[in-house]
């Protein structure tokens, strides 16, 4: 029993320490982002663009597939239920609101955590175990400025863009089901889509994905920088990075949804 309490205590301490480390990584990243240009050590533009292309543009295909088919599935599932009430036209509203509020941002972020987050951890982790991070430090190049800031910036900017695209792809998928399978008039479908959709739905979704982007970048970089023990260590760090990102994204989603839609403010 005592051993159990001991291990719970040890786990709690370790978790708190790690949380603090990630928070301090966040502040250092923000510091370099803002103070970098003034210290004549701005982050190189090319590496930011390279990261943006990798994280954003090259992720469009997978985001398209995930969001598009999710839109189709929601339309089909809700059509089955709504047809019992004779209200199939409301499929349009249901698809658009659920895509924009939740599924677009969250699914996109989960996909990106798997695709980009894992890549970031594996790359930085390999650099750590092959002395490359040490080499950077010995050349007076701060690894946070050099490696973390471009990735952080790229994800924080590109994930909202991808989420917005995901919203569109999903709505498009729903539209195809509505028009070609449920025989709803195309104009009526589009009209219903916009009647139910509010600006707040889209805005909160985009804002969420902005936060998710920062979470993915920070967790992935943190795990990468703290990789230990060769190839096996890189594998472990990558797994932990993706799993932690998934959990934190869902957790942050719950908190933000609570604040946006259920608080009495």
């Amino acid at each position, binding site marked *: 029993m005592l051993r159990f309490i001991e291990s719970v205590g040890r786990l709690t301490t370790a978790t708190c320490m790690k949380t603090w480390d990630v928070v301090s990584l966040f502040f250092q990243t923000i510091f370099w982002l803002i103070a970098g240009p003034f210290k004549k050590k701005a982050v190189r533009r090319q590496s930011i663009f390279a990261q943006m292309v990798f994280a954003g543009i090259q992720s469009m295909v997978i985001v398209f597939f995930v969001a598009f088919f999710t839109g189709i599935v929601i339309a089909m599932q809700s059509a089955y239920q709504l047809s019992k009430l004779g209200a199939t036209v409301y499929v349009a509203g249901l698809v658009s609101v659920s895509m924009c509020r939740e599924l677009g941002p969250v699914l996109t972020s989960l996909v990106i955590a798997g695709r980009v987050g894992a890549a970031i951890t594996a790359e930085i982790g390999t650099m750590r175990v092959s002395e490359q991070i040490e080499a950077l430090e010995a050349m007076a*190049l701060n690894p946070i400025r050099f490696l973390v800031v471009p990735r952080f910036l790229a994800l924080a900017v590109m994930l909202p863009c991808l989420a917005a695209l995901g919203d569109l792809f999903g709505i498009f998928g729903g539209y195809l089901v509505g028009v070609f399978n449920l025989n709803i008039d195309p104009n009526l479908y589009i009209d219903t889509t916009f009647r139910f959709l509010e600006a707040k739905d889209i805005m909160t979704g985009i804002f969420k994905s902005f936060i998710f982007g920062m979470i993915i970048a920070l967790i992935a970089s943190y795990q990468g920088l703290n990789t230990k023990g060769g190839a096996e260590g890189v594998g472990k760090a990558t797994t932990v990075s993706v799993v932690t990102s998934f959990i934190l994204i869902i957790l942050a989603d719950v908190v933000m949804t609570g604040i946006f839609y259920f608080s009495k403010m």
Partner: protein
Amino acid sequence: MQKEVIVKVENVIRKFGSRTILNGINLEIFRGETFVIMGGSGCGKSTLLRHMIGALKPDSGKISMFGKDLTTLSEDEMDVIRKKFGISFQSSALLDSLTVGENVSLPLREHTRLDKSVIDIVIKMKLELVGLRGFENLLPSQLSGGMRKRVGLARAISLDPEIVFYDEPTAGLDPIVGGVIDKLILDLSQKLSITSVVVTHDMNSVFRIADRIAMLYEGRVVEVGTKDEIRNTKNELVRQFVSGSPDGPVSFFQQKDDYLEQLTK
């Protein structure tokens, strides 16, 4: 003439957990000399090197370079020092996302305001010094181990440092490439009067390049001297190491007595 001390290590103690890796190290390295630190695997020589470049902090003791105590410097002050020395890593630690030319020019692009055309000339000069001019556009993964080491060396000297640290410069290379690297180290110290600090256990290399040699054993400096002093030493430990004899005060088998006991248990 009074020799100028450029690196000074005083009473450095470092423990990892319960193991004492460095147990009161004292060394003085003079400007312009080639100083070799030799010792068996795991005797703490790489750890000592990491302390000298400020990558690790000692538990107690003082390390100074250019008369400044590294253990008390802030990160910004440390960066100033870091630009005045170069380090060639055991695994060469080139950034594998950058080409050879970009690797060598990285410190120049980050720390100087030189024009691109000037930097291009400097890259060619540095690569010529290590015999690899014309390889600018290859990636590190396309080079052999010896070539990577030489590129790492070119990068270490790209900012015209006053000191270059070498971690096992000839380990894992064939004798000819090893000889080429040794000649490079000699050339650099003679032509550019760079102070060299070399960590190695390659005895051929030691007697080719060293001005002075320090022998490390179990976290202590057991002897410091010139080549001849080391060759003709009375210290059994050093003699055994130099001749590579399996018998002597340094025992390879750590627990002889309980061997039988362990086998028959």
